[in-house]
């Protein structure tokens, strides 16, 4: 229900003049330098940039995991710039999902239990049938009872994607989803994300430096030294790679 309402809004996440600085006075590093950026609802945006360009910081600020030094962040229609921990927790339960490079599954739980965990924490029950259906849709119908360490990297990442699918968050934040995967597994995971964007209208904010991953997105935004320097609509992997090379050169 809430998801449907949020989707009508034009922007799912918006950053207004966000600056994020680290370190003490002598060694001050500015990871984000006055970034203003809106992520449209129902579409997949990739944020690209060389190492140290502030990609991850941007994702963390947008998801409310890190506070920005100045500026404002809106998520699912709410100002979360100075939100209290309890409010952010509720937000993470209902509006925000994560898929990360390091998979981030709870090691002691099975694939099934990992998928059901966010809903369980929010106090919702999910039927066994639904959980199995979600896992089957990512091709893990026969791996329900396996723990993360009994699965390959690609399979673990698919469990993480299934977890996001089951949650159907307003925004799915994805950080280097293919960073630790071989190319076949990477293609599978990207295909699953593309499917979520197309069929369910899932809003995805993805950070990556893999041109092939970025090329799957609807829009690609280029970040360098904490500033947005370029953007492209549905570019090919080669175009992304060329622009990235230009930035790094």
């Amino acid at each position, binding site marked *: 229900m809430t998801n449907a309402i949020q989707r009508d809004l034009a922007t799912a996440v918006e950053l207004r003049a966000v600056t994020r600085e680290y370190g003490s006075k002598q060694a001050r590093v500015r990871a984000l330098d006055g970034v203003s950026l809106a992520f449209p609802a129902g579409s997949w945006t990739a944020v690209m940039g060389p190492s140290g360009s502030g990609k991850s910081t941007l994702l963390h600020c947008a998801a409310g995991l890190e506070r920005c030094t100045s500026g404002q962040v809106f998520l699912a229609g709410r100002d979360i710039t100075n939100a209290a*921990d309890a409010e952010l927790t509720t937000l*993470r339960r209902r509006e925000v999902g994560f898929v*990360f490079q390091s998979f981030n599954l*709870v090691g*002691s*739980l099975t694939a099934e239990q990992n998928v059901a965990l966010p809903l369980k924490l929010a106090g919702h029950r999910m039927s066994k049938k639904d959980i199995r259906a979600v896992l089957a849709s990512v091709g893990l119908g026969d791996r329900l009872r396996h723990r993360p360490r009994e699965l390959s990297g690609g399979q673990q990442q698919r469990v993480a994607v299934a977890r996001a699918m089951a949650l159907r968050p307003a925004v799915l934040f994805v950080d280097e989803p293919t960073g630790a995967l071989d190319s076949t597994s990477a293609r599978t995971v990207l295909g699953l994300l593309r499917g979520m964007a197309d069929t369910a209208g899932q809003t995805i904010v993805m950070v990556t430096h893999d041109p092939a991953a970025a090329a799957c997105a609807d829009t690609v935004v280029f970040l360098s030294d904490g500033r947005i320097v370029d953007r492209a609509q549905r570019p090919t992997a080669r175009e992304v790679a060329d622009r990235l090379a230009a930035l790094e050169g």
Partner: protein
Amino acid sequence: MFALSLSTFRERWQLFLGAIVTVVLGVALVQSSLLVLVSGTSYVEAVTLLAMTLGIAAFLAIFIVGSTFAFTIAQRRRDLALLRLVGGSRGQVRRLLLSEALLLGVIGTALGVPLGLVVMRVQAWLLRDLGFVPATFAARWQDWILGVSAGIGLGVSLLGVLAASRRAARVRPLEALRDTGNAARVMTGGRWFFGLLFLAGSIALVTVSRFAGMDGAVPLSINATITAAVALSLLAPLVVPVLGRFAGGLVGANLRDGVRRSASTAAPLLVLVALVLGLSGTLSTMSEAGHRELQQDLAGDFVLASADVPRVPGILVASTETAVRTSLADPGEDEADDEEALVVDADAYQQVHRRAPVAGSLRDLHGTTVAAAGVPLGVMLAIDGVARRVVAVLPESVNAGPAYLLPRDSRPAIGPARTILRVEPGVTVPEAQPADEWIANQSSKQDSTNSGIMTVLMGLAGLYSLIAVINAVVIAAAERRGEFAVARVTGMTRAEVVRMALLESWAVAAIGLVLGAAAAAGTLFGIASAVSRISGSTPVSVPWQALVVVVAGAFAVVGLTSVCTSLSATRRAPVTLIAARE
């Protein structure tokens, strides 16, 4: 939440093993000590020993469960952050840990109750063997103890986990995304607060114990040892890097880097040394002081173990002193206490004892009167139903002097008696013991009681510390698998890595031992000044033998565990470990 706790428990049982053993042991010891205590309330030495066992078992159990969980929180930061990331609230994280504590308590109780039955037999046998209870003594099972045991099991677990769960709730979701989760500050506000609070508490206890009477000084100084040990183990992270500087090289750098790890390993050793030195030092200082007091007080040449003075020429004075049990009520109180008193002949008594009353005079000790310690002149005491006036105030005594003297002319004296004799030079009384020999005998009797108590308590503390130290070393080594692999890839051989870990853990053990000695030194200072206020001399007696055993044992156990765990952590080829990150 409970299901998650259960699966965490199954998955990471190594982390909890130490805590489980600790709770099981705690439940067993408390249960058995209570049962034995209830069955034998009339044996003073047994009660003292059991009460101390109870206190130490409960304290150490909470302390070890607490430090184990604090340590596992540091290890599981990533998991906990992940839980927060997918929508877990702070309350849910706390509930997760508290239900782990609940599980721990249930397992601990279930295993602890049957073990307690075994411990009860051992304890009863031990008390009989030490001669604290008669040979026919046996402890009885009581049904209500089940409730107490369950309460202890759950209580110890929950109390131990409470602080850790608060810290866990503060883990930030972002930490799930960083490789190293232990960037968190070790010296948290709470750690500072409680560290300084306990330090202030132990300073206060030591100060008070200097002015408290001898009866109060011992428990006060034992409590001071415990609080000082807790304070120093909380503040240990401050000291570890300082000492790490002395170690130098890679070992020193590792010590400074792994402050929490080092402090966790050092803590149980710290507590052990503080308890061993503090307790046994207190007891041996007391018995040494008692010995000196007897020497100063006794002006006789021979001591006879009966009231029958032999007809030997040359005896100048014979002071017969009979120990009687009396029931004594303070003025205005109905309830009477059982007290031991000496029935004496005042004139003879004064001639063989040098310690004079602090007020009044023993010359007046005739008729319905009494000489008492710690009671003002002129007060009426009801002794065995007879109202007696206090005519002399006896000096405070470390442990040898009598608390009440009754005149022979007003009290029939039936009971164990001794007679102190003063003779002309050169006269010997064959039936009697020379005074020096008698004093030495008295002291060694006291000492054997003390060493009986000490052996039991130290065995107990040693057992707990053993569990805690092994636990800490094992958990720490699991964490360092990756680090060891990196060290090997950068050119260290397996033997060098193991040696590095060994040196490091020995350095940590040394830190724990030094800090524990510091905590005990404070206590001994307190008890020594309490003794010197009463007896005028300061005989600090350091139990070197126990110290040597503890130090050697600590290095052996820490070293052995360290070598075993680092060998097992480096068994696989380093490359596989670096490549396969969780």
